[in-house]
């Protein structure tokens, strides 16, 4: 049994978004939004390929990764097929397959009232959540502030990210 001492509530989550596929970004968006709904502070730090979700020109066109994703059998029920049917990984490389899987996934998400990336980020930002870009990754991908979504709060160095995470009830999550 946990003692009351051990059960100190989560006060803040700082979530690192390092993946740039649709399935890579959503867990972070859902966790951040869910935190705000519980009254927990939330900040999202987009780094490396995760920045794909903040670039104005790419954020609305993120795709489900079908190459090297050996768990795509999970999506089989969306095609009314049993989940136990394996999805051959070579098929993921066929042109159009990723777009098809993305369309399918988006349809299912809409049914559950999960918003598209841009609208989801707006919701998180409206709720008081903070959206940050990683300075080093921006430099590496030759991105400027104006390439990013207008509502990004700031571009941070790793050190600044940790400063933002200060506090005894903060948890850092890597996705």
């Amino acid at each position: 049994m946990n003692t009351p001492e051990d059960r100190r509530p989560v006060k803040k989550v700082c979530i690192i978004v390092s993946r740039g596929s649709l399935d890579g970004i959503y867990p972070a968006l859902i966790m951040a939004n869910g935190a705000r709904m519980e009254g927990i502070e939330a900040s999202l730090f987009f780094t490396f390929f995760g920045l794909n979700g903040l670039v104005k020109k790419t954020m609305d066109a993120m795709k489900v990764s079908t190459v090297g994703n050996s768990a795509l059998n999970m999506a089989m029920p969306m095609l009314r097929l049993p989940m136990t049917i394996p999805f051959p990984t070579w098929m993921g490389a066929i042109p159009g397959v990723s777009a098809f899987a993305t369309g399918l996934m988006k349809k299912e998400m809409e049914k559950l009232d999960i918003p598209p990336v841009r609208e989801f980020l707006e919701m998180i930002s409206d709720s008081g959540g903070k959206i940050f870009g990683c300075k080093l990754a921006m430099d590496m991908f030759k991105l400027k502030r104006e390439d990013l979504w207008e509502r990004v709060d700031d571009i941070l160095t790793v050190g600044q990210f940790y400063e933002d995470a200060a506090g005894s009830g903060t948890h850092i999550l890597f996705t």
Partner: protein
Amino acid sequence: MKKNLVGNEIDVNEEGYLTDMSHWNQGIAQAIAKEEGIGPLTEAHMKVISYLREQQTKGAPLTIRSMGKSGLVTTKELYDLFPGGPLKKSSKIAGIPKPVGCI
């Protein structure tokens, strides 16, 4: 379990949510709001609360997104009206069950 709210013995669950939404009235709403550190409830709060009760009667699932799209409040206003858990707290004040969704 029973809880005394503005002189009435009301059935609530262990988290303080009313177990029967028909036992709700505005006085009870004010009392719960006070306990939650919200209020006094204004017309803006009441609009959200009546909307929640309507949706609950219809059996419609509640999400922050659907609230934002209702045209009643923006997401930001909802968070400002019910700080510290917009959907959970507003549902509690509205006398409806705790929302179960993740969105």
